[in-house]
């Protein structure tokens, strides 16, 4: 009985500690975001005040003013991000499968190759890309921006897709083949569904990467294509905190929606897997 009580007390203390750790974690995680929200409604905020001196929606009105193009830019941003995900996945599903399952010469070289666009600070690259695009006349189109974003995000989709395919149990594929499924049928009905969560996850990152991209969009898209980060970039660099915070909060909306939707998808799949 006493030992039971002791365990209760010990687990109570552990609970308390865990709750405290969680609270601290939440503070560091949410604090900076809270800061964003505060700035978005701060009309005046300076020393020695710890909180905004006057609150108001002046800057929200400014961002959503008739001549402002925040919403149109947001729509363009999301549209580009969705197309980028489609292009990236169309390229990376076969590539990921090849990397994970097939005998590929100089395999590691290919892996590193996809990493490269992510690693090189890219102004110098985009100037030259713009040069080429001007020559073939596609600069300033959504298509051009999508291509650039896809090349940049491809590392996420290829690497993660390769890992996802590699994680699929080969015995299941063999079993499907043994009951007479064709290789293509095996791929579409066994391998792909099992790798789907990973592939969806890779899509999320391509999406976010595209939503976040500034330099490439500037060189191959501007002025015909304007995305939200282009607005954000100026405001944030120039220290216009209110406008930058509001733009950032707007950028959060599609990401959160997208994420909620994905979350549902991922969960169902994971549950299905637990049963099998």
């Amino acid at each position, binding site marked *: 009985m006493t030992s039971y009580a002791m365990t209760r007390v010990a687990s109570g203390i552990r609970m308390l500690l865990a709750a405290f750790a969680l609270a601290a974690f939440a503070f560091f995680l949410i604090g900076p975001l809270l800061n964003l929200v505060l700035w978005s409604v701060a009309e005046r905020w300076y020393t020695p005040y710890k909180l905004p001196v006057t609150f108001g929606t002046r800057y929200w009105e400014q961002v959503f003013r008739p001549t402002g193009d925040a919403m149109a830019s947001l729509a363009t941003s999301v549209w580009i991000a969705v197309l980028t995900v489609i292009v990236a996945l169309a390229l990376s599903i076969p590539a990921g499968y*090849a990397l994970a399952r097939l005998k590929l010469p100089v395999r590691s070289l290919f892996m590193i190759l996809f990493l490269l666009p992510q690693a090189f*600070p890219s102004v110098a690259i985009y100037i030259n890309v713009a040069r*080429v695009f001007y020559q073939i006349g596609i600069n300033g189109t959504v298509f051009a921006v999508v291509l650039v974003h896809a090349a940049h995000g491809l590392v996420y989709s290829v690497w993660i897709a390769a890992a996802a395919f590699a994680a699929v149990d080969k015995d299941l594929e063999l079993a499907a083949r043994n009951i007479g499924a064709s290789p293509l049928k095996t791929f579409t009905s066994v391998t792909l569904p099992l790798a789907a969560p990973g592939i969806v996850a890779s899509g999320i990152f391509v999406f976010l990467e595209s939503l976040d991209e500034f330099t490439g969009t500037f060189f191959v898209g501007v002025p015909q294509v304007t995305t939200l980060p282009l607005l*954000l970039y100026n405001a944030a660099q120039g220290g216009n905190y209110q406008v930058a915070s509001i733009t950032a909060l707007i950028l959060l909306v599609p990401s959160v929606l997208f994420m909620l939707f994905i979350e549902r998808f991922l969960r169902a799949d994971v549950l299905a897997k637990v049963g099998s």
Partner: protein
Amino acid sequence: MSLSQRQLALLLIAPGFALVAALFLYPLCFSLVSAFTGPEGGFSLQAFAKAWELYSGDVVFTVVIVVASCLLTALLAIVIAGTLTLGENRYIVGTLRALYRWPLFIPFIVAAQCMRTFLAKNGLMNNSFVAMGLMEPLQAVSFLDWRGIIATFVWKQMPFVALLLAGALAALDRATLEAGRNLGASRLRVLVELALPQVMPQLLVALVLSFVTMLSVLSVPMMVAGSQPTMLTVDMAFRINAYGDYATANALGVITYLISAGAAIIYLKRGMAKEGTP
């Protein structure tokens, strides 16, 4: 058979390869040429000599920042993903699951901006501590230096790594982990000795991706910390904007490349060798 499989593999990877080759490798060649060309034309290592002379300190600074950020990110991500998978308290797991992914959505430039008003000497963090009575106002220090950069990187990348890791852990065979628990192993031991080794490849993938991403971010070091010392991206931008000196900027780019190639090779060696090539 083996030959045709090779051909199939090359065929499948070709479209992706073509995109990267056209939009990255081809333009990269111009950068490489520029980095290895002297002021009077012809092959030269002068740009590298200059890059090293002026920015050797920043090279070290960059490597230290990025490695430290990766280690901290990995540690936090393991704790989070481990709690999510093995945690027994529904409320804690639920809260954590709802919380940890938020920074993932934030573009780097916004993260940088959040952090520079959050971590400052009289920023929201210190002000909150003072208001809660945890700290005297005079003890407040500014974190807007290397610590700020690391904090921002970890804040932004931790959800990414945790997400991948949690996904990998969730896909593990529960029975093995349960068996470990039933044999009396603590959750920490189950995590470290049973679960983690199995998801090492995914962890490494996530970390290598974070590593190269951090290396190429300009806005965070530019906006969070003063410029002495600073990261290589800032130096590159400065070289171009102030002097129009593409040669040295590209040389710095090549150095950045070598650093990330190092990380990529570690990943390829350890991760893939363990998984076994098919």
